[in-house]
């Protein structure tokens, strides 16, 4: 049985760091041997072609009975030199606003190793090749020699920062919707933004002390309160970039193609007023039909850009639906969040040259994503309609079944011009 290296685990440790410890615990084993060992233990969950860290994560979850998550991995990997030399890294180190280590206070958190000036080595193979004593391969012998296990670390500040980030990255507050007294609509702060601490401290000064202690730079920030109630105006945020979707010349063709299918399906499913199958108008015929509303919303979302997507939409039970759509819906873009398991195209995915995929494949994947997007909208609208009777009750924000993650497709491609995918069944009719 392969070792997990749990004895090296420390509080608040990131999955990447646990993966590094895993390799300390299995010296002399090749990548192939490790994969084979993991595969033996999780035959059902093991995926060929999936990054080794993910298979390790599955094994770790099974053996420990806990969920070990890979968080903020979309951000640039950053670490502190002292922590790296001991095989440690915490998820929140990756935030750009955290520049000094909350454990080794004066040590800078950087995107490269200060010793060898190279970016932090993420794969065990690279670590093995690198002879740097900070970011290279760690061995049990070296850790013992450095008396790493005798050190006592103070995680208090790190724990406080992580708690702040967790509280504001997960919507945990109860929100009441417009039309009801004391309505409050809070836009969630994005902890991965550079100005997250500044906006947070302006809204909640109680956190100032903690953030200053962590040497976080705080800027002046203004909060505007508008007609929608209390709302944090994210002045510094530059996350609403124009979508690259518009640049694709075949984008509208795909939308039209899927729209025709949706309308045909709609006509066969629902029993409200029959519609003309013209895509351009895409009218809502029945304000109580989930499918009709979903069609309209879907088209609206695809044709507007992100910044005004939530403003112009006018549908039944709009606040509730709007909230979920704006917070949980992933609107597809070509060439984003796709995973192809066909051997021919794996090289493109791995090297981030997704654009090299033939256009017909790109288009087909995009169409699939459009379909799933529609199904997700339909789910949300259907749920919203079931809740319209009593708007005065409050809604818990985290509904697990409505967490709509970015769409990841596992598409099997045997030939460049052929692709077989089974779509989920659509069981929604009229409400």
């Amino acid at each position: 049985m392969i070792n997990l290296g749990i004895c090296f685990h420390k509080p608040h440790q990131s999955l990447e760091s646990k993966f590094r410890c895993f390799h300390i615990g299995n010296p002399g084993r090749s990548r192939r041997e490790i994969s084979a060992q993991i595969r033996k233990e999780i035959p059902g969950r093991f995926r060929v072609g999936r990054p080794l860290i993910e298979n390790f994560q599955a094994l770790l979850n099974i053996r420990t009975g806990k969920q070990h998550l890979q968080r903020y991995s979309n951000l640039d990997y950053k670490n502190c030199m002292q922590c790296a030399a001991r095989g440690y890294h915490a998820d929140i180190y990756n935030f750009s606003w955290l520049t000094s280590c909350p454990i080794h206070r004066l040590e800078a958190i950087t995107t490269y190793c200060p010793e060898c000036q190279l970016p932090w080595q993420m794969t065990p193979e690279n670590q093995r090749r690198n002879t740097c004593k900070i970011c290279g391969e760690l061995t049990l012998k070296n850790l013992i020699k450095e008396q790493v296990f005798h050190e006592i670390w103070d995680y208090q500040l790190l724990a406080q920062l992580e708690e702040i980030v967790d509280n504001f990255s997960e919507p945990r507050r109860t929100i009441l919707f417009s039309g009801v007294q004391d309505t409050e609509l809070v836009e969630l702060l994005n902890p991965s933004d550079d100005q997250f601490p500044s906006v947070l401290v302006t809204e909640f000064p109680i956190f100032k002390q903690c953030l200053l202690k962590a040497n976080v730079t705080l800027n002046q920030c203004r909060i505007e309160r508008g007609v929608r109630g209390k709302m944090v105006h994210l002045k510094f945020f530059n996350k609403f970039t124009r979508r690259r979707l518009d640049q694709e010349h075949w984008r509208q063709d795909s939308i039209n193609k899927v729209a025709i299918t949706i309308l045909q399906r709609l006509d066969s499913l629902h029993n409200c007023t029959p519609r003309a199958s013209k895509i351009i108008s895409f009218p809502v015929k029945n304000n109580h039909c989930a499918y009709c509303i979903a069609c309209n919303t879907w088209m609206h979302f695809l044709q507007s850009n992100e910044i005004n997507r939530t403003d112009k939409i006018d549908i039944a039970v709009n606040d509730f639906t709007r909230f979920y759509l704006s917070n949980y819906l992933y609107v597809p873009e070509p060439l984003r969040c796709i995973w192809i398991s066909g051997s021919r195209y794996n090289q493109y995915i791995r090297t981030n040259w997704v654009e090299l995929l033939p256009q017909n494949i790109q288009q087909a994947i995009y169409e699939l994503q459009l379909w799933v997007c529609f199904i997700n909208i339909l789910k949300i609208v259907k749920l919203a309609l079931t809740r319209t009777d009593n708007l005065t009750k409050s809604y818990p924000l985290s509904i697990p079944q409505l967490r709509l993650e970015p769409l990841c497709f596992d598409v099997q491609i045997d030939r460049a011009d052929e692709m077989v995918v089974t779509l989920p069944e659509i069981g929604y009719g009229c409400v």
Partner: protein
Amino acid sequence: MKTVNPNKGSSLETPIHPIFSPVDFYIDTPMIGKLEETLTRWIWTGQTGGYVLGGARMGKTRAAELLKLNLKSRTNEHVPAHHVTISNRDVKTVASVFRRLALSLGEELKKKDTADDISARIIVKLADQAQGNQTRQIVLLVDEFQRLTIQQFAAFSELYDQLREIRINLVTVFIGNKNESSQLLEQIYLTEHEHICGRFFINNFEFGGISNVGDVKYCLKQYDSMRQIPGNTDSTTQYFLREEFNSGFRLAALAETVWSIFNQDYRKKLHLKYWGTQYFLVAINTLLLDYLPRYGVSDRAKVEEMIMKSIDTSGLLSGLIGVCND
């Protein structure tokens, strides 16, 4: 034409009694309790290890196998214990000890694996297991330690030292045959091997077999009360002597007779200190399976004769001859 075994189906439906499989059948003996108490004391007082000596066929290995599941820390948490049996090899090196340990821990080894790599993997494996209790303790039960050379103890010293460095408390318990290990122990007690002696050979426990009528009664009571087959409420005595058991017969009632026969005819004559647990079990099993069901339990004289025959059948005498010849 296909032949059908009529017994095949029934044997699958009703599992056989474990008494027929010497490896599976066990009863709790007073000595196991004493050993558990001693090991618990060593764990609780933070001892680095100790050694357990006993004669052949006393049940040391069986006791170790049972105890490895039941050890508790002061915080009443399970302390993981690992049982490894040392094999006799032509080449006796430290690396071979590591390889033996690694294999018994479930490691898959390759020829290219170095002793350093193997030792690191063993350390991490033991350390990972020790994370299950707050006191971070783990027990290593090394059986047949008389097969080790003095140089090979360096492997256990290294494990202890390295685990200590990563804040894990390893308790190493060496279990061995009393007569065979005397020479090795003499070497260990020499001043040049003080580092081994100080770590592992300060504490000791003598593992014996059955030594009095109380022990016999304790063991026979297990036959009357312990359920051996999952899903079946019958005790072992009830299973093989159903009618007699239902009319009030208990094997424990024969305790004094069994002891007096052993004491008079074997123990005193042969100058035995203990009745080896394995010999005792074979004797009682023979009595229970072969003699009592056939000749009944009512005639006292017959029962005494049956007990004598059972003890003879157990191999106690031939075993002693073997020891003398050695």
